[in-house]
């Protein structure tokens, strides 16, 4: 009952059109005041949610993207991608999902993936005739791959809480990640094809393509350089964000030589605004998470689900449904920390494979990133484009259904997730 009141209050505040962080903050204050009689934890919760070196990857990737756009490095990259696949109808959607997939192998964060690829791909897709809403959907969904395709910050967190193998989880995410990428790409292609007014380029010929490839050399080199650095042990996946930004700076200043100090400051300034906007929501979601955790609301929901004494199938469906609902309001890290410890004992009792569950959890968290009212990837796109949130939500909606379909597939065919880790010697 208190849950209905709390979420009802939050939704009511959100609908007034006040900033999301203020709505989250105020509803938390009401909960804390009513249930605890004090709001002292507010500042502490803000500090705790923001005081994380892992979060710093997001402004670093944002800065990298800004520099690459400002120096027109991105134009060369997209020109190349367009010449490669632009003559295929809907090819740009493919190129965008492919970029997200590649970027996901560098980044452990979905927000960073959506931010980086989105700020370069959305304008290009629209330039070539994509409906704005469709381009938002592709990025919202493609970005979520960041946490399913290894490396993945949330997977590591889940592995530590659940005692599952990190290596096995990483491998388990790969096939479902690629599968979802393919589903997204196919859907985007179908959407554009049926719509019919997208511009189609004619095939430019091999010589032209080679020229475009040569011109985009520095942009194309970025993933191998960053991936190489990670897998050769030079830097961690989080540090890779800063290294990527340094690489972009070096290419802009030394190779392209088309940016002034003023341009770079503008990039930093835009990064600051985006970061402040995104992270204020994160901070307020931190207070909200604290407020409902301390009154044991999520615990009671999960315990109620657990107490239903369902079989394996019923249990997983109920847990996934509960996490989907929590995912509408809470942020991914909070969901993992709050739900996992509570359901672990039942999971063990029912003999549910923690790796299999982990992959389903990740897909559910991908859903959380694109479901309103609190969906970080939606906000990223809002930050990049300034579009109306309702338009972005509309664009992301089909992908919500596709992700649910992906979740159902992994549930029906556990081997999609488990085959690769088992074949690599994990488990037993």
């Amino acid at each position, binding site marked *: 009952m208190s849950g209905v009141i709390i979420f009802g209050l939050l939704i009511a505040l959100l609908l007034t059109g006040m900033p999301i962080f203020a709505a989250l903050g105020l509803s938390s204050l009401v909960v804390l005041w009513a249930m605890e009689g004090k709001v002292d934890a507010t500042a502490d919760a803000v*500090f705790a949610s923001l005081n994380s070196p892992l979060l710093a990857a997001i402004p670093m990737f944002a800065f990298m993207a800004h520099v690459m756009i400002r120096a027109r490095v991105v134009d060369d990259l997209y020109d190349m991608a367009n010449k490669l696949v632009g003559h295929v109808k809907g090819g740009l959607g493919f190129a965008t999902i492919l970029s997200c997939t590649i970027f996901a192998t560098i980044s452990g964060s979905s927000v960073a993936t959506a931010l980086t690829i989105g700020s370069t791909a959305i304008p290009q897709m629209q330039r070539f005739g994509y409906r704005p809403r469709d381009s938002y959907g592709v990025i919202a969904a493609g970005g979520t791959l960041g946490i399913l395709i290894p*490396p993945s910050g949330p997977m590591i967190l889940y592995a530590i809480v659940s*005692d599952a193998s990190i290596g096995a989880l990483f491998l388990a995410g790969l096939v479902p990640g690629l599968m979802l990428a393919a589903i997204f790409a196919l859907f985007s292609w179908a959407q554009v094809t049926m719509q019919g007014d997208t511009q189609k380029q004619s095939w430019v010929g091999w010589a032209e393509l080679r020229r475009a490839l040569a011109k985009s050399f520095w942009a194309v080199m970025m993933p191998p350089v960053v991936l190489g650095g990670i897998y050769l042990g030079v830097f961690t*996946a989080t540090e890779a964000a800063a290294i990527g930004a340094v690489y972009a700076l070096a290419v802009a200043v030394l190779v392209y030589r088309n940016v002034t100090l003023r341009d770079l400051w503008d990039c930093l300034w835009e990064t600051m605004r985006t970061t402040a906007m995104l992270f204020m929501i994160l901070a307020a979601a931190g207070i909200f998470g604290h407020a409902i955790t301390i009154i044991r609301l999520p615990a009671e929901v999960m315990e109620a689900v657990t107490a239903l004494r369902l079989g394996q199938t019923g249990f997983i469906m109920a847990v996934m449904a509960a996490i989907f609902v929590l995912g509408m309001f809470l942020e991914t890290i909070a969901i993992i*920390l709050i739900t996992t410890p509570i359901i672990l004992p039942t999971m063990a009792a029912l003999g549910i494979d923690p790796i299999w569950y982990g992959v389903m959890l990740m897909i559910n968290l991908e859903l959380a990133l694109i479901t309103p009212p609190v969906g970080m990837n939606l906000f990223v796109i809002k930050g990049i484009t300034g579009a109306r949130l309702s338009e972005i939500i509309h664009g992301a909606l089909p992908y919500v259904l596709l992700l649910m379909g992906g979740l159902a597939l992994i549930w029906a065919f556990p081997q999609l997730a488990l085959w690769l880790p088992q074949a690599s010697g994990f488990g037993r």
Partner: protein
Amino acid sequence: EATVMRCSHQLPPAHHIALVVDQWAAEVETLSNGEIDVQVFGADSLVKANDNILAVAKGDIECAFSLNFQWGKTLPIMNVTVGPYTMSSIEAWKKWPTSEAAAYLEDKLSEKGVKNVAWMFQTNVSVFTSKGKFLQTPADFQGLKMRGLGPAFDKGLEAMGATTVSMPGSEVYQALATGVIDAAVTDVAAAWSRKYYEVQDHFVVVPVLAAYLHGYVTPAFHDGLTDPQKAALKKAGEKAAGWAIEASIEASAAAPDQLASKGVQVHIATDAENEAFKAVMQPAFAAGFEQETGAEGKELLDLIAKLQ
């Protein structure tokens, strides 16, 4: 109406000491005849590891558990057991909860602003993990990049020539896999639960340091309890101290074999090897500890010497 006591800790739910915390919580409820309702929030789910101390001291929540060295410079004397080979024997640990040394630290915690309620011995068995060869002598550490345990303990590693690196806990597995760092030192049970055997292949088991997870409550909250409730809390704490030792002995005993079963090389350090480590690491730690804790640190070390 029962008094609610929210307890935060950082351990994952299956950790052997997390289970002891749950057992302790149930015991507090039983001994207080249900007058204290203990709600445990593990795995960082309510308050994060590094924020527990202030959250309890301030009264945001009533109770939390921290590892001793998490006090850091805030209360450096809590680092005492991190001293290389300072508290290596289980016998000393069994005497600990009711010892003068523990009482001394409880006073220090009170002066600082939290009321200690339980000492849960977590480990005295650590492992040096590495790839390719054992870290068997101080010379083996020369030039290695290692994830350390914090400023106090790392002085000993640096004295052996290692470079200690700081990174978030969630990054360590991958950093070991890719070679950003070469080696790590961790509790043997953690080496198992955090799957270091997937990315490291040589493990040297050493009783190099002792760590405890200690439970503490907000002083004002404690003052508000009735005398029987306070007694229940005290009694449950003493019982839990015993359970923790049993659980830790069991976990430490099983872990080397578990690690070996994963096909990695496990070596139990010999007395001579431990002496060699101690000779290099101990003086380096002691210098720093003395500088930070002064006469009080010396007094505490004397009390600890009586336990051995």
